[in-house]
C-alpha cells in the first residue's frame, strides 16, 4: 500500500484536504484484505466509493483535489487487487479514469482564445452528482410505506365465490344451428360424395388385400367385372398411388404382353 502512496505525486508529498495536510491514509479507510467481500458489499461501485471518499473527507465536489482522491481511491483498489482482481474490474477502470484526469490536469493546457477552459474533472463531477441524486432518491423511495412491509391490503373472503355461470341458449339458437348444418351440407355435398364412395385410399387398401397371398396378380384381375366406370378409374388411381408409394411393383415382359402386379415385401 505504501508503494502506491510513494508512487503517486512524490513531488507533492502531503495532500491537503480543505486546507488540512493529509499525512497518511486515514485509519478509517483501512479495510483488511480479508474484508474484501464486505468492501464490495458496502460500496455499490466505483462511483459510490468516490462519493464516500469525497463526502467523508468533506472535499469540495466542484473542485475535487484529484491527487488526493486518486491516492485514497487507489489505496482501496490496491486492497482489492490482492486476491480478487476479477471482482475489482470496474474499480480498476475508474482508477484509470482518475489517473487520466490527473495527468490531463498536469499537462499544460493549450487554450485557444475562443475555447472555454475545459476541466477534465467536469464529467466525473456530473456523474458523481447524478449518482448521488439517485442514491438519495433510492433512500427516500425506501422510506415510503410499502405494501406488505408497512401495511397489508385487505381482502376478505367472498362467501359465495362466484358460481361458474353456464351459457344460456335461446330457441332461436337451435333454429340457427339447423340452418348452419344445412348450409354446410350443401357446400360439402360434392366433396362428401367423393370421399364416401370413391375414396382412392379405400381402394388402395382393397388392392393390397387382393394382392395378399399371391406372388403376382394379373393387372386386369384387379378390376372387378361388375365395377362401374368410376370404380375402375379409382382402382387404377389406387394402383398408381401404391406404385408411387413403393407398395407394389408393376412389370411387363414384352410389348403388349401381360402386365403383372405384385406387392413389394416390406422386408
Amino acid at each position, binding site marked *: 500500500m505504501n508503494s502506491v502512496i510513494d508512487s503517486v505525486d512524490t513531488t507533492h508529498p502531503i495532500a491537503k484536504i480543505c486546507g488540512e495536510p493529509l499525512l497518511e491514509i486515514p485509519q478509517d479507510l483501512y479495510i483488511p484484505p480479508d474484508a474484501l467481500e464486505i468492501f464490495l458489499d458496502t460500496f455499490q461501485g466505483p462511483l459510490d466509493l468516490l462519493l464516500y471518499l469525497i463526502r467523508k473527507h468533506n472535499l469540495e465536489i466542484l473542485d475535487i483535489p484529484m491527487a488526493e482522491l486518486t491516492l485514497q481511491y487507489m489505496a482501496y483498489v490496491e486492497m482489492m487487487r490482492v486476491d480478487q482482481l476479477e471482482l475489482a474490474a470496474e474499480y480498476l477502470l475508474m482508477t484509470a479514469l482518475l489517473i487520466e484526469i490527473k495527468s490531463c490536469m498536469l499537462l499544460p493546457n493549450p487554450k485557444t482564445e475562443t475555447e472555454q477552459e475545459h476541466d477534465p474533472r467536469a464529467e466525473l463531477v456530473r456523474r458523481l452528482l447524478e449518482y448521488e441524486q439517485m442514491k438519495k432518491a433510492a433512500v427516500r423511495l425506501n422510506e415510503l410505506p410499502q405494501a406488505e412491509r408497512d401495511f397489508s391490503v385487505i381482502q376478505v373472503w367472498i362467501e*359465495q365465490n362466484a358460481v361458474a355461470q353456464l351459457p344460456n341458449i335461446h330457441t332461436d339458437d*337451435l333454429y340457427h344451428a339447423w340452418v348452419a348444418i344445412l348450409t354446410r351440407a350443401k357446400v360439402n355435398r360434392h366433396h362428401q360424395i367423393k370421399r364416401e364412395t370413391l375414396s382412392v385410399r379405400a381402394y388402395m387398401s382393397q388392392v393390397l388385400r387382393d394382392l395378399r397371398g399371391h406372388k403376382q396378380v394379373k393387372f386386369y384381375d384387379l378390376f372387378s367385372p361388375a365395377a362401374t366406370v368410376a370404380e375402375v378409374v379409382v382402382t387404377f388411381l389406387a394402383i398408381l398411388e401404391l406404385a408411387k408409394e413403393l407398395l407394389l411393383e408393376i412389370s411387363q415382359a414384352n410389348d403388349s404382353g401381360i402386365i403383372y402386379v405384385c406387392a413389394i415385401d416390406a422386408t
Partner: protein
Amino acid sequence: MSAPLMPLNQPDPLDSPNPAKIRQILEAALLAVQDPLPISELRKLFNNELSAAVLSKLLEEIREKWSDSGVELVTVASGWRFQTKADMQPYLDRLTPQKVPRYSRAVLETLAIIAYRQPVTRGDIEEIRGVGVSSSVLRTLIARGWIEAVGHRNVPGKPELFATTQHFLDDLNLRALEELPPLEEMKSLIESSDKNQDLPFEEPEESDH
C-alpha cells in the same frame, strides 16, 4: 453505512392490554388475512400473552359490531374469518362480469339435432353434421341436464339413443317440444333430400337465407 432502515413502527408494549386496541388488532388481522385464523394463530398477534378465552370474548364483540354490515365475522372449521354476506353477492357479481359464456357451434348443433330429430344416436348426429362428435360435446349437454340416453338402437354396437329432457324444456321456457321454432322449411328440405336419396339435407334451389 450498511445500517438497514429501521421498521417504521414498533408495537407498543402490551403491559396493560387495552381491550379497544386488542379488538382493533384482531379486526385488522382478520380483515388482512383471507384464510380463516384459529385462536392459536390469533394469540400470536399478542405474543401468546392473551388467553384464548379473552380473545374469544373479544371476537364475539367484533362479530356483534359487524352484524349490521355487508361483511360478517364467522367461524368455520379452521378458524375465524370475515366474509361477505350472501346478499352482497349480486352486487359483487357486477364487478366481475364473467364474460357471458357461450356454447360452441358443435354443442349447439348437436343439441339442435337431438332436439328436432330425437331420439338419435351419436352416429346419426355425426352423419347429419358431417363431422365427428366429440365425447365432450355430449358430456357437456348431459352435465347440463339437457339431454339423456333414453335407450339403445338395436343395431350392431347397440348405440345409445339421446333425447332432450324436461329440464331442457324448463330452461328454455318451453312447455313442450312442439314450441321449438317450427322447421317448415326444414321439413320440406329433409323430405326433398329423402326423395333424392342423395344427401340427408339439401336446400331447395331457391331457398336463400
